[in-house]
C-alpha cells in the first residue's frame, strides 16, 4: 500500500504521521491551511466546510461541500480537497487579490463581517455554484431559490452570527454561470479520484479502508467491535465532543456493493453507503415521502456525507429517517461473512441505540416495498426550520379506498427510546371513513402513543400535543 497522500488546493501532501483520530480540519490547520475554522466541532456551523471531488454518478466529478471537522483526515487518502485558499488568492504585497466569483460577490456585498465563518460559506456556496443542474433550473426566484437556480438550502449548514444573512443571500443569488476557462468547472468534467484501500496502524489506533465488501465482512467477522465509518457525521461528533477513540476504524463509505440503487417491480433498494444527497438526486420525485424528508434532514453539508446506513446503524431514537422508513414498511438487508438476511425495520430497533444487528453484520441496503401508499406525509417538529434535530417526527403512509382508510402506517421519532410505529393509531384509522371526526378521534389516540420525555428540546406535553396536531394537520392539508 502506498503512502498516505491528500491533494489540497492542487498540491499533493503526505499525511503519513497521523492516527485515525485526527480530523480533516485539524490536519489541514496543522498544514498551515488555516482558512477552514472550527466553530462547533459537530457539523452544525459549517465554518470548517471544504470542497471534495466526489463522483456525480455519471462518470464525472461533483464538487461536494462537507464539514472538515467530522471525518478523519485518513478517510481522504488519495482524494482531492479544495479550501477557500485554493479558490482564490488574497492580495499580497505588490499583487492584487484574485477572487473566485463566489468570493467576489461575498466581499463586495458585505457578506463578511468578522469573517470567521466566511471561508466555510464560500466553500458551501462554491459547491452550489458548480452544481451542474443549477443553471438549467429556469425557475423564477421563489421561496428559497434564487433567480439563478441557487438553492439556499445549500447554505443550511452554515451559521453566521454577524450579518443576519441578507447580504449572503444576495451574493448567492447574484452568481452567474462558471466561465469557460474556470479551473474547477473544467476539473469536474473528469472523473474524481477513485477510492483506494488505506491502511494505517500506529499506537493511536488503526484505520482501514477495505477494498471490497468481502474484505470488510471478513475484517468485521474478526473484530466485530470495529467502528464502521461512513460519513462520520455521528462518529466525528463522538470523537470531538465525547472524546471516543475507537481502536479500529473501518471506512465503508466508498464500497460499491453498498452504493447501489435499484428499482424493481416490487421494491426500491437503496445502498446503505449512498449519501442522503445522492439519494436525493437519484430518486428525486420517485418516493414522495423521501422528497419531503431529505430536505429537512440536517443540512446540505451533513447530507453530502451522511448515509442512510449510518442513520439506521447508530440507532438514535431521534434520527429522521426511521419514522419515514417505518411508515413505508422498509426492510434492511444485513450482510456478514456468513451470509445475508432481511429484517423488517419495525423489528430492527430493540432499545436505546440497540438493534438486532449482530456482531459482524453491516447494513447493506434499505428496501422500500412497492407500490407506495398514495397518501404520505412527513412532519418534523423542531425549534428551527433549517438544520435542527427533531423534537418529534411523524411519518404517515395511508391508503384510502372509497373514502375509507384501508391501511395506515405511522412512524414516530422522538417519543420513545427507539423509533416506533403508532400501532394503536393505525388501528383507530383503518376501516374508518377519512373525515374530520375520524381524524380527531385518531389524533386523540396518537397523542397517547409512546412515552415522550421532557428535555432541552421540548416538554413531554408538547411532544404529545404535536403527535395529536400532526394528524389534524394531515387531515387538513392532505389532498385526496
Amino acid at each position: 500500500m502506498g503512502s498516505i497522500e491528500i491533494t489540497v488546493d492542487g498540491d499533493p501532501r503526505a499525511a503519513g504521521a497521523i492516527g485515525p483520530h485526527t480530523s480533516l480540519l485539524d490536519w489541514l490547520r496543522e498544514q498551515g491551511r488555516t482558512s477552514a475554522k472550527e466553530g462547533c466541532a459537530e457539523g452544525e456551523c459549517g465554518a470548517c466546510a471544504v470542497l471534495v471531488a466526489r463522483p456525480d454518478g455519471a462518470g464525472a466529478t461533483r464538487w461536494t461541500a462537507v464539514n472538515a471537522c467530522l471525518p478523519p483526515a485518513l478517510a481522504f487518502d488519495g482524494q482531492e480537497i479544495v479550501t477557500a485558499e485554493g479558490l482564490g488568492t488574497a492580495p499580497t504585497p505588490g499583487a492584487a487579490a484574485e477572487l473566485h466569483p463566489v468570493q467576489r460577490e461575498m466581499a463586495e456585498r458585505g457578506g463578511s463581517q468578522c469573517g470567521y465563518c466566511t471561508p466555510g460559506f464560500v466553500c458551501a456556496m462554491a459547491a452550489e455554484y458548480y452544481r451542474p443542474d443549477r443553471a438549467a433550473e429556469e425557475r423564477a426566484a421563489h421561496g428559497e431559490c434564487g433567480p439563478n437556480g441557487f438553492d439556499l438550502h445549500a447554505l443550511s449548514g452554515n451559521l453566521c452570527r454577524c450579518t443576519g444573512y441578507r447580504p449572503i443571500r444576495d451574493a448567492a443569488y447574484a452568481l452567474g454561470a462558471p466561465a469557460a476557462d474556470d479551473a474547477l468547472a473544467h476539473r469536474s468534467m473528469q472523473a474524481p479520484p477513485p477510492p483506494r484501500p488505506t491502511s494505517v496502524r500506529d499506537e493511536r489506533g488503526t484505520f482501514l479502508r477495505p477494498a471490497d465488501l468481502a474484505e470488510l465482512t471478513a475484517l468485521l467477522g474478526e473484530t466485530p467491535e470495529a467502528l464502521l465509518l461512513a460519513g462520520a457525521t455521528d462518529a466525528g461528533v463522538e470523537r470531538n465532543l465525547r472524546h471516543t477513540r475507537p481502536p479500529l476504524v473501518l471506512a465503508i463509505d466508498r464500497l460499491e456493493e453498498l452504493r447501489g440503487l435499484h428499482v424493481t417491480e416490487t421494491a426500491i433498494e437503496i445502498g446503505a453507503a449512498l449519501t442522503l444527497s445522492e439519494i436525493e438526486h437519484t430518486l428525486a420525485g420517485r418516493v414522495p415521502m423521501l422528497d419531503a424528508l431529505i430536505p429537512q434532514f440536517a443540512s446540505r453539508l451533513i447530507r453530502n456525507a451522511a448515509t442512510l446506513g449510518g442513520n439506521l446503524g447508530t440507532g438514535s431514537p431521534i434520527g429522521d429517517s426511521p419514522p419515514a422508513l417505518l411508515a413505508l414498511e422498509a426492510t434492511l438487508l444485513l450482510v456478514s461473512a456468513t451470509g445475508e438476511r432481511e429484517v423488517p425495520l419495525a423489528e430492527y430497533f430493540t432499545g436505546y441505540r440497540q438493534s438486532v444487528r449482530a456482531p459482524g453484520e453491516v447494513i447493506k441496503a434499505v428496501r422500500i416495498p412497492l407500490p407506495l401508499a398514495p397518501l404520505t406525509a412527513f412532519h418534523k417538529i423542531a425549534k428551527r426550520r433549517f438544520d435542527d434535530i427533531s423534537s418529534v417526527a411523524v411519518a404517515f403512509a395511508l391508503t384510502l379506498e372509497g373514502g375509507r382508510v384501508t391501511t395506515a402506517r405511522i412512524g414516530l421519532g422522538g417519543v420513545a427510546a427507539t423509533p416506533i410505529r403508532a400501532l394503536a393509531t393505525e388501528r383507530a384509522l383503518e376501516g374508518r371513513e377519512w373525515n374530520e371526526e375520524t381524524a380527531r378521534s385518531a389524533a386523540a389516540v396518537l397523542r397517547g402513543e409512546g412515552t415522550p420525555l421532557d428535555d432541552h428540546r421540548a416538554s413531554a406535553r408538547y411532544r404529545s400535543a404535536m403527535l395529536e396536531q400532526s394528524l389534524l394537520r394531515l387531515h387538513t392539508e392532505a389532498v385526496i
Partner: protein
Amino acid sequence: MATARATAALAATSLAERPEHPVVGRAVSHESAELHVTGAALYTDDLLPRMPGALHAWPLQSPHAHARISALRTEAALAVPGVVRVLTAADVPGVNDAGVRQDEPLFPAEAAFHGHAVCWVLGESLEAARLGAAAVEVDYEPLPSVLTLAEAIAAEQFQGAQPIVTRGDAAAGLARAAHRCSGEFEFGGQEHFTLETHAAIAQVDEAGQVLVHSSTQHPSETQEIVAHVLGLRSHEVTVQCLRMGGGFGGKEWQPHGLAAVAALGAVLTGRPVRMRLNRTQDITMTGKRHPFHASWEVGFDEDGRLQGLRATLTSDGGWCLDLSEPVLQRALCHVDNAYFIPDVELRGRIARTNKTSQTAFRGFGGPQGMLVMEDILGRCAPLLGIDPTELRRRNLYAPGQRTPYGQLVRHAERLPAVIDEVAARADLDARRADIAGFNATHPHRKRGIALTPVKFGISFNHTAFNQAGALVHVYKDGSVLINHGGTEMGQGLHTKMRQVAATALGVPLGLVRLAPTRTDKVPNTSATAASTGADLNGGAVKDACEQIRARLAVVAAERLEVGADAVRFSGGSVTAAGGEGEAAGTTLAWQEVVQAAYLQRVQLSAAGYYRTEGLHWDPVRMQGDPFKYFAYGAAVSEVEVDGFTGASTFLRTDIVHDVGDSLSPLVDLGQIEGGFVQGAGWLTLEELRWDTSDGEGRGRLLTQAASTYKLPSFSELPRELHVHLLERAAEDGAVYGSKAVGEPPLMLAFSIREALRQAVAAFGPAGHAVELASPATPEAVFWAVEAARQASGS
C-alpha cells in the same frame, strides 16, 4: 462661494462637520473583506502553526454546581505522556483574580458553577493536555447551590449594589391612573456564540516582556489582568488583538482570565502557550447575556397615557459580579425606551447564582430594560382597548421631556419621524387590512404585524471610559499607518477609521493602512463596547490626523503663498482656497507636501486623543446626563404562526434607523441587519436550559452545543428585509456627524416578538391579553395559541 469655503475651512476642525468630498459616507466593503473570503485573514488561533513548540492548555472543569475543593492532586496528570505542567493556584505569583473585584478567583478554592475551571493542564499536544486533565484528582465537597432566579429571589441571594431610579411619586402616578395593570415577566439570556471561541497565545521574549495575542475587545484590561496575575507592571505586558471572529460583548471581560492562564504558562515554562476553548468549554465556562425577572405595576390615563410605573428588575448575575452592575444600570436607564413616564420608581438587584458569570452582550442590559416596557405595552393594549401601535405613539417622548434619570431627550422629534416613515415604507395600514382578511380565511395559520420603536443611549454610563487614543504615522512616501485603541470584531470599526483618517488628511482611502490593535501603540484604552468604538476612536484618529494636517498646512502654505488656514487637503491634492494670489489654482501633490515637510524637519506622526464632552453620571443617585445622544429607530415586522405547531415564519421587516450621517453605509447596513437578526434569535429561538433538578447533573448547561443551542439561520431571515437610514440626521456631537450603530438595532427585533403576539391573539377572540414567554420558541408560541383559543373575549 468664498463664504461657503470659509465655512468649510472652519468646519473641517469641528467634530461633526465634514469637508468637501469626504471619504466617510462612501459605501465601501469591510477593509478585510478580501482576506475574509480567501481565508487569509488570521485569527488568534491561526497563529498556532506559525509558532512551533507551543504548548496547549486544557481545563479541568467542575462536575458540581457548587463545591469546596478540599484536595487537588496532580501527580497522575504529570505522569501522562506529553503533559508538561499543571497550573494551580500555588503557581500564581501575583493576584489570583480574573477580574478587579477579588470575587473571581482564576484558580478557585471553591467551584462556583458546573463547568468552572479548577486548574489547567499544559501539554505538548491538545490530546496530552486533555488526558492530563482527566488524570487530575480532585476531592470535592458539594455545597448547596442556587440556580434559578426564583430560587435566588426566595433566598434573597443578591450581589453588588441595588440601584433605584426614581422620578416624581410612582404611587401617586398609579393612584391617579384610570387603568392599572400589574404582572411579572421572566425572560431568558443569550449565549454570544461568537463563531470564534475564546483564544489566546502567550509568549515571553528574551527580555522578559510578555506578549499575549488575545481575542479581546478590551486589550488594556486584558493587559492589566495578565499583569496583576503575573505580579508584573503593565509595561512588562503587551496585548495584541489581530481581529476577533465575533465579539458582541462576550470578549469584553471574559478573555482576561484565559489570557492570564496562557501568560502564566508561558512565564513558567518559557514556551509559547496556546489557549483555545472548544465550543463546549466556551459555552459552559464563559458569561452570557443576563436573564431577568421583572415585576411591575403600571397605570394609564383614560387615553392610554402612561401615568406611573413601579417595577423591580432582578438580573441573574451568575457566580460573580463581572459587569453585572453597569449592565443593571443600563437596564434601568432603558426601561422607559421611547416613552415618557411622569412618575416612576425602578428598582434593580443582581441575583447571585451558581451559573456562569453573566456579562456584557450587545445592548448591555438596555435590551432587557426595554423588553420589560414593550412587553407591558403589548400585554396592556388589548385591556385598554387601544391598538398597540397607537398606544406606543401616544406615549412617545416629546421635545423638552426628560428621562426618569434626568437627561433631556434631545431630538425627541425623531421618534415620531422614524415611526411615520417606517409605517409609510411598510405600508402598514393597508397591510393590516390584508392581514385581517388573511386571518379570517385561514383557521390554522394567522398573521400578525407590529411596529416598535427604539431609543438607545450612547456613551459608557461610567463617564471615565469615554476617552480614546490613536497613533497616526505619515511616512515620507505619503503613505499613512493608523493605530487606535479600538478592536475589530467584524463591526467594521477599522473600515470606518480608515475612512475617518482619509477624510481628515484629505488623501485617497488606499493610502491609509491600519495596524492591529496593541497596547504598546495606544495605552489605557477603553473596551470596544457600548457602541462607542467609532465615536471615541474616530475622534482620536481625527485629532491625530488634524495635528499632522495642520503642520503640513504650514509647509504647503509657503509654496501656495497663502495663509495656512486657506490650505485644503482633498483626494490626495493640496490646494489653496479663496482664489487670491499667484498660487491660485496651483495643486500640490500630497506626497510632495509630505516630502517637503520631512526635509523641513516637521513631525509626521501624532498621538490623537478624544474625550466625550458634556457627560456626567451619579451612579448612587442614578441621575445625570450619562449619554452623549440617543440613537433612534423603528421597525415593522409581519410574521405568520402555524397553529398546529407554534412555528413561525418571518415574512417581512421594514426598518428605519438613525445612524446620524453614516460614516460607512455598507458597514452600518450590516450592523442594522445583523443586530436585528441577532435580536430575533434572542427573542424567538435561542434558549439556555440548565439542569435545575436535584440530580447529579444539577447546574449543568443542557444546551451546550450548536446542535442544542440554536442560532438564527437563513430560516430566521425575513423573506423581505428593507432597511432605510434616516436622512438629514447629522449628529453634531459625534465624529463627522455620525451616530453609533453597534447595539441599537438589536432592539428592532421587538417588532418580531410583538407581531408574534398579534398573530397569537388572532387565534382567539378580540380584546384578550396575550402573554408570551421569551424566547418565544415554537413550543412557547403553541401554548400561547392554545391559551388564546381558550380565552374569552373582553
